[in-house]
Structure formats: C-alpha cells, structure tokens
C-alpha cells in the first residue's frame, strides 16, 4: 500500500471513526482514502472548509469519546495551533498526522507551535510498516494519556508503496471514556473543557493547568522510543529520524564496508525525546553527526541530551527539488556518505 493509504487504513483498524481534513500536499491522499473508506465502517469523514474548522470538528468528535484523526502538513498544522494547544488542556485524545515537506516541522511538533504549557507525544515512522504500527500506537497512547498524539511523516513516507501488515493491539487496559460528553443519561452531567475541571461547580483553571503539566514528566518517563544500530565499536554515530533515517542507515552500512566504524541512532518518539539512548550512544563515540532535512532543529535536543560531552555536528540541511516538498539532493546516499566521511575524517582519522 501507499504510505498515505496505509496510515489511513491503520487508523480505521485502530478504531478511528471520525476524520476531518482540508486538502493540502502531501497529506491529501489520507483525506481521499478516508472519504470513501470511513463510511464503509460507519464512520464520518468531513472534507472541511478550513484547517481550523477541521481540527475543531475533530475536537467535537473526540469530546464525544470517538477516536478521531486529522492530517495536514506544517502549513495547515500552523493554522490549527490554538486548538492543538487547547486540546491538550481539554485532555481530548486524538491523532494528528503531519506529512511534512522535508523535516522543517520538528520544532512545531515537539515544542508545540501553540500557546501555554503543553506537549503532544510525537512519533516519527521511517517506513510504511512502522507508520502503520505507530498510528495504531498513537490512538492507544492518546487514550492512555488523554492527550493528542502527533505522527510526523513526510512526502516520501506518504508516497512510498510497501507491503504492510496490520497487527491487532491489546487495549484491554484502557479505561472506558466516562469523561466524554454523550448526554448525561443516568449520571451527573459534566463539562469537557480546556478551562478547568470536568466537574460542575468547580471551575479552577489554575489547578487544572497544574494537573495537565504534572502529566508531562510521567509521559516523558514512560514513552521514549528509539532504535540504534552498529554502535558497539562505533567512533561516530549518526542521529536521524523519519524517512531520511532510512537513507542514513544505508549510508552507514556503506561506510562500514569502507572501513569506517560508524553506527546510527534513530529517535522514534521525538517528544519525549530519547535523551538517555542518545547520551548512551554518545558515551562510546567521538562525535555525533546529526542528519535532518532542515536548518538544524532536532540537533538542539541531541545537544541537550549529551550536554557537551561529545561534539555534535550537523550534516543535513534544507534540501528540496523544484516542488519544495522535501525530496532533495541531500538525500542522495553518496551525499550522506560524503558528509559522514568528512566528520569521520575530522574526528577519528585525524
């Protein structure tokens, strides 16, 4: 399946029954797929009139306890930011897919483009199969933590076709959504709000915001995910996420064949950032090289993780073809190999 369709189908397999989207490249194929597939399973797909309307439709469906998803790209995600911030305060679980143009939306996703003290869990798949698994995981984590979860993909992921398997998840440990607005039949009414407690007669924004903030370290402790490879004797480790990490892995193998002791670190959760895994990798190498398709964003988190113990060298950069969608010459394996070789020469051979 094509990546976009696999992401949409994974959402449906995970129980997503509401989708709202506004067409924007390279996320549009998710909306197309949802528009015909969701009604087949009794769900609702809205071809919304703006990104702001789309995310607030998701708000409504999520507030009623229905699994809901939205997809866009960075520009559209920018338009949604007020809602993306306040969805976290309202503790509404939903999945936000950003099919980036390149990787320039790392800050937007991990720092929160919106206002206030909130975070989204951010998962970054590098293959279509992993995208399927992380989308399904995203719905689970969103319900577990009552917090939006972002899946950060890109143009390449969305348009790569690969064979995929849709695993089933055991979610029996998730509590029922007793907090949802469904009509107060047989129970006390409640208030699903970003402004305070869900209980009536108890509107206290200060303690509510403190409660939200207190969840963040618990999420951070529980939900870090990372993959590493070839680090045992490595002198240089390359840190990369998402689709470009596939190119990096290939480049690392080629460098190994050329006699360079190189490994790789691939953060899967970008928030919480797997700082310990990166620090552990830093403990056995002479330098960390960071390959990302932007002007240098994840590299801040890498530097925070290693706190100056090893040099952290950027080897990526902004790279587009004429379309501007992030498929550029920097992804050429020869280019990545040359950049790794350069770092290796400076830090190891010298």
């Amino acid at each position, binding site marked *: 399946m094509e990546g976009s369709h696999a992401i949409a189908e994974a959402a449906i397999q995970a129980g997503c029954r509401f989708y709202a989207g506004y067409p924007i490249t390279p996320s549009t194929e998710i909306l197309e797929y949802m528009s015909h597939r969701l009604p087949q399973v009794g769900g609702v797909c809205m071809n919304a009139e703006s990104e702001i*309307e789309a995310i607030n439709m998701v708000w*409504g469906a999520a507030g*009623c306890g229905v699994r809901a998803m939205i997809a866009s790209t960075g520009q559209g995600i920018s338009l949604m930011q*007020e809602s993306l911030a306040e969805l976290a305060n309202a503790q509404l679980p939903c999945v936000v897919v950003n099919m980036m143009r390149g990787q320039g939306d790392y800050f937007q996703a991990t720092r929160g483009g919106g206002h206030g003290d909130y975070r989204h869990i951010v998962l970054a798949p590098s293959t279509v199969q992993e995208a399927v698994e992380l989308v399904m995981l995203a719905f689970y984590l969103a319900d577990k933590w009552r917090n939006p979860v972002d899946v950060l993909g890109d143009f390449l992921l969305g348009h790569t076709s690969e064979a995929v398997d849709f695993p089933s998840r055991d979610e029996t440990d998730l509590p029922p959504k007793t907090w949802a607005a469904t*009509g*107060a039949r047989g129970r006390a009414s409640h208030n699903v709000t970003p402004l305070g407690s869900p209980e009536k007669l108890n509107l206290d924004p200060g303690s509510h915001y403190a409660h939200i903030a207190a969840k963040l370290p618990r999420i951070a402790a529980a939900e870090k995910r990372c993959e590493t490879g070839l680090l045992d004797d490595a002198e240089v480790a390359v840190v990369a996420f998402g689709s470009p990490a596939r190119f990096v892995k290939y480049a690392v193998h080629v460098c190994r064949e050329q006699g360079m002791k190189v490994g790789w670190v691939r953060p899967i959760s970008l928030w919480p950032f797997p700082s310990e895994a990166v620090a552990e990798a830093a403990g056995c190498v002479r330098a960390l090289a960071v390959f990302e398709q932007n002007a240098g964003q994840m590299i801040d988190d890498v530097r925070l993780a290693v706190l100056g113990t090893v040099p952290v060298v950027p080897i990526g950069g902004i790279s587009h073809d004429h379309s501007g969608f992030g498929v550029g010459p920097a992804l050429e394996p020869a280019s990545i190999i040359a950049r790794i070789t350069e770092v290796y020469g400076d830090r190891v051979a010298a």
Partner: protein
Amino acid sequence: MSTPPETLHKVSAKPDLLLSTQHSLCPGCGEPLAMRSILELITELGLRDRTICVCGIGCYTAFPGIIDVDVLQALHGRAPSVATGAKRVLPDNFVFTLQGDGDMVSEGLQEIIHSAARGEKFTAVLLNNGVFGETGGHMTTTTVLGQKTKTTMETGRLAERHGYPIKIADLLAQVDGTAYVARGAMHTPAAIKWTKRILREAFEVQLAGKGFSFVEILTMCPTDWFVEPSETPDWVETNFTGTYPLGILKTP
C-alpha cells in the same frame, strides 16, 4: 400571614437544570434570561439526558459549570465546528451551540456559515448584545450604527469609518442549508415569551431531523453599554430592533 389567593400562581423559579445561582454575569444582563429559557425548554422537552451544549467564549462561558447538561467547551469562534463533530458522531443527541456576537459573527463567521450551508442538524443560538462584553465593551461586527463602544468612543459606530453591522440571521436565511431562522430578544416580557416560542420551534426542527436551525437573541449589556442600566431594555427597542427586527425569517 394570609395564604396567597388561589389565583396567584408561580410564573418563574430557578430552572431545574440550573445547579447554582452563583455566577459572574451582571444584574440586568440579558444572557441569563436567555439561558433560563433554554434550560426550561430542555426540561419541558425531556432532553436533559441527551443534550450536549457546545459553548463558545464570552460572558456566557460562566454557564457550562453551573448547568446540569453535558457541555463541550469550544474555543472562541469554533462552536459550530465542534458541534458538527459531536452531532455527526452522536446523531441521536440533542446538540445546541451558545455563542455571542463576537464569538459567532466576528471571530467565527466562516464556521457558522459553513455549518449552516452543510445543513448540520444542530441548533445554533446567538446571544447578540453588539459588544465584546467580556473584554469590557468593544465594537463587534454586530454593533449597530451610532452605538458607542470603547473602540468607537468619539463618534459611535460610523459606517464610513467602521463599516456596517452584519445581520447574520438575514444572511443565514439566504443559505440553502438552513431549515429554521428566527430572531427574538430579552428586553420585555412579551419578547422573552416570543423567544421561548422560537427556541422551541428551532429545537423541534432539530429533533425532527429537518436541518440547521438558528435563533438570534438580542440581549442587554447593562455594564458595557454607555446606557443607564435601567434604560437598556428600552435601548434595545429603540436602537437594536430597527437593524435586527424580531421575527421568523425561515421555516422548513
């Protein structure tokens, strides 16, 4: 103390669905009067157990914590979109939005028009007092010509400087997706009674699945208008109902 004569009967009491009379709205405000009518109707129509109120941001955001129905709090301007998501996934529930003129007609104009055009089967209620009351009385899209606000202090709203008010009910009546559009007010006992009637009709349109229903309610703002509080009902009659005449603009 003598017993009341049998002809004396109670015409008004705290609505059953109001959990507390302690709220932050000002004495003389029209919004609690509108809320009362809505809550009475929810009880009369037996809708409490399947009601979802989608509340906007304004002075009336004091209500979600004290009304005994489920509430989805929306961001400023976004209630129609939130209600769309809710009603689409729970079509058997009774869903209504509560927005002020700043929320619906200024910030959220696009959302209300698109929701109406899609024929979403919820009821949208507009509380129109022509000012941003919560911020302290600033001009909104519905401020009428000549109306003094904190951002039109010298001249009142001037067409050549500030443009014209949007008559949202008239506009929505032109949209194919709307089934019911009406305008009421809270400034006289007769108007309150009329407004409860049109709210009931709007709710019944939703319950019958006939499409998008809309009720605009003119309300007094005794604090932020530059009018003696006791004169605000008369001010509605003199200055508001010309631009916003009460009536039913569209029925199924």
